[in-house]
């Protein structure tokens, strides 16, 4: 994303719309990538509530995949994931491997 020049910004650099941070993608910060395994998921949504970056997509109360545009790869979701029969539904893998 190209930064705006001063001529493109509103006077005083006022922010004119709410929630505009969504246009700023923080996914490039990630060093570790969470991988979601649907077959081990019990739909507890703990990953969703504990995600500091609102990077877990949930639709109609059902968990979807990660939003890699925003996930910073902290790994809270993988640690908190209860999984199924001892098998975690979220595992962390190194980026670029």
């Amino acid at each position: 994303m190209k930064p705006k020049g001063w001529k493109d910004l509103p006077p005083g650099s006022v922010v004119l719309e709410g929630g505009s941070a969504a246009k700023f993608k923080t996914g490039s910060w990630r060093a570790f990538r969470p991988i979601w395994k649907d077959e081990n998921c019990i739909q507890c949504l703990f990953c969703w509530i504990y995600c500091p970056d609102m990077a877990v997509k949930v639709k109609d109360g059902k968990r979807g995949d990660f939003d890699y545009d925003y996930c910073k790869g902290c790994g809270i979701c993988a640690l908190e994931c209860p999984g199924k029969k001892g098998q975690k539904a979220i595992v962390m893998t190194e980026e670029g491997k």
Partner: protein
Amino acid sequence: MATTLTLKELSKKEDRFTHGHRMCSGCGAPIVVKIALMATDYPVVISNATGCLEVSSCISEFTAWNVPWIHTAFENAAATLSGVETMYRSLKKQGKMDREVKFIAFGGDGGTYDIGFQSLSGAMERGHDMIYICYDNGAYMNTGIQRSSATPLGADTTTCPAGSVIPGKLRSRKNLTKIMAAHNIPYVAQASPSHWQDFAKKVQKAHEIKGPKFINVIAPCNRGWRSKTNDAILLSRLAVNTCYWPLYEIENGTTKITVTPKQKLPIVDFLKPQGRFKHLFSPENEGLLTQVQDEIDREWEKLLKEAKTD
């Protein structure tokens, strides 16, 4: 306006604090904010003291807030919000506004325990109808981990570095939750993001009470606590289970413990994963470790007694 507190129902709501904010990876503060804001359907107005949360949620051109939000200086989040709340009451009286609006102030421990303390105390004493939520990460993390009056005993920070001269901070943290309770306000509580339902319930309850309310929430900071990026929730849960951060509420002077740990864990379980307490585990600092444990036991016993007699 009660919101059903199940994750399934909550997940259907629109985010009031969006992604794209620039808090560190694994920060506890956005989790605190998101739970606090999703707990209610009321329109809210936020006043935010300077701190990590403020500087990284509204970096030029962008804002992560989907609700009216005012950035205030370090010392006056509560004072600013008192003014807004007073104006709202006046507009209501004049018949220019009829919507039910709720007011929330957010501040870190530096902006609440230290710099913003007098404005907070004033707002609580004047009885403004608002909730002040302090996210306590135990130091001035935003400016580079300087000690605050919320920093626990023995913690290593850049202004009380552990070494051959001192073993980290020499003073105990002050108990702000109790200080706020001493203002005789209708509702004071302590919460943790790990127990999200307990926290959301407290916010909901606070919204329904008229007058000043205060909620103190622990918010792990992996940079300042020198821990892993993935353990914010784990550490806040350990803080509750070791009774370092007991979950309780004081409603109209009556103390109630909302979550009692099944088994009270030794404080070392909470200290061990944190690099800021690493030096406490060397033989010469054994006495300090016992002192920390004794202090926590004493406070917990006191709290149990208060909850029993009330």
